[in-house]
């Protein structure tokens, strides 16, 4: 493990931790501009986190140790996810520890823990959120796995760094299977990150909540960690999308200049991606919860078709 590898790994984690709330703020700004509202300041999420960390954490009378430990476990999972996804560089010493399938398993682990924590207090809202979250997850997780398989078939590997390396080095080739996988991945990220059209991140009506219902009982530092973990998850998903479909600009091993250039490239790509996400959110309406399986089943089928197309066309 070279010092450059160690540095790029550390930089990846720190960049993710610092940039994730900024990305959430940017998406909120774009959405407000598109909807002709005045936006909160760009650094508002940082202030919110700071405020939440200061507050006391108010726990329900019957909250157990699982409830109190879950935010830390979920945060730890998201930190590991941001360490594995190649954002700035493919020279990540931690990346052999988890390939694409393990990354999906990591997200599943976080989802299971937060659902269990939501069921812990035993109110109607918590179990509603847990049931809906697992429901969205059980279709989104295999669809995400199939998207990764599309990329793996092309690059003959499930290791994320190898996938990015192979895809970045091909000549500007248009892979139809990746087109299908891209559409499927966009639909999956919308579902997994609790965005319209699957869930409304700004709702206050408990009956329409999925993600918000999970964290309804949390407050203070626990809520801050969970909010940070949610923005880390959005950041990680965006970086996965960029790594799979727009991998240019990510530094290779042993290239310190490229590492310096990778940061502005990442910021630029994320800004464009965040604006696109805000655009998608603005033109769609939230679906009824019974339509969500159809939405995700469509994403799943698209990913499977992408696999089949790649076998047929050899691309």
């Amino acid at each position, binding site marked *: 493990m070279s010092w450059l590898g160690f540095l790029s790994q550390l930089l990846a984690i720190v960049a993710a931790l610092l940039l994730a709330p900024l990305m959430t703020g940017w998406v909120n700004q774009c959405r407000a501009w598109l909807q002709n509202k005045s936006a909160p300041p760009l650094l508002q999420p940082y202030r919110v986190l700071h405020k939440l960390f200061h507050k006391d954490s108010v726990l329900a009378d019957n909250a157990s140790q699982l409830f109190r430990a879950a935010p830390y476990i979920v945060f730890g999972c998201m930190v590991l996810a941001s360490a594995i996804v190649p954002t700035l560089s493919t020279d990540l010493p931690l990346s052999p520890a988890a390939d694409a399938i393990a990354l999906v398993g990591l997200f599943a682990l976080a989802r299971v823990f937060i659902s269990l924590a939501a069921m812990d207090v035993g109110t109607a809202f918590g179990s509603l959120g847990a049931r809906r979250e697992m429901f969205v997850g059980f279709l989104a997780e295999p669809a995400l796995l199939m998207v990764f398989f599309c990329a793996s078939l092309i690059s003959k590997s499930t290791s994320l760094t190898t996938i990015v390396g192979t895809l970045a080095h091909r000549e500007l080739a248009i*892979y*139809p299977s990746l087109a299908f996988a891209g*559409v499927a991945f966009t639909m999956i990220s919308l579902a997994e990150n609790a965005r319209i059209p699957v869930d409304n991140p700004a709702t206050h009506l408990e009956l329409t909540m999925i993600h918000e219902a999970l964290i309804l009982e949390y407050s203070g530092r626990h809520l801050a960690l969970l909010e940070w973990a949610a923005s880390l998850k959005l950041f990680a998903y965006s970086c996965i999308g960029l790594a799979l479909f727009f991998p240019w600009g990510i530094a290779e091993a042993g290239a310190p200049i490229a590492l310096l250039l990778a940061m502005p490239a990442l910021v630029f790509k994320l800004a464009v991606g965040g604006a696109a996400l805000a655009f998608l959110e603005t033109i769609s309406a939230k679906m009824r919860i019974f339509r969500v399986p159809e939405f995700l089943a*469509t994403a799943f*089928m698209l990913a499977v078709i992408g696999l089949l197309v790649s076998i047929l066309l*050899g691309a």
Partner: protein
Amino acid sequence: MKYIPQLINLLAAGILLLSFAMISQRRIASLINIFALQGAALVAASVLLGYTSSNADLYVSAGLTLVLKVLLIPWLLYRVIHRLNVRWDVEPLINVPTLMIVGIGLVIFSFSLALPISRLSASIAGGSLGIALACVLLSFMMMITRSRAVPQVIGFLSMENGLIFAATAATGGMPMIVEFGIALDVLVGILILGVFMFQIREQFDSLDIHHLEKLKED
């Protein structure tokens, strides 16, 4: 130049994607939009194929498709649905996830049928034969499982799209006489179907094809 085969593959994949999108759509207005988009993708693919194989017939075919499938027929269909005041569709006869699963089965079937043929094809878009066949089968399935008349018509037209794409991809287009004949048939067919739709509407006050079952001898 070397990107053209990849572009054609991409357009083929786009046509398949749009066929799937048509299956899962509920609103008739967006169905017509998707159909027009599919026609546009077909036009682009024909133009590219005509450019690489220097086959002027393909340009004519592309022009014909543009005029008919992208401009004239969608406009006609819009007029029809405005006058009939049909906006929404009811649930398809089988629910959408099952349709998707059957669709995947049809795709696998078409791909495995087309694989040996596409290896023999001389055209650079030979691999798209499986995709074209899949589009035809998917549109047929859409015709079978929709319960209103307008989506069935669109399914029929989309099937025709798939057939033209299959011919273009595998053999470099059909003879011009055949193309013109098919185009004329399609246009006349649409006009007749339009008349039928008005008749159905008058008779049953609705475009739900279940009502046609009342015409049985009982």
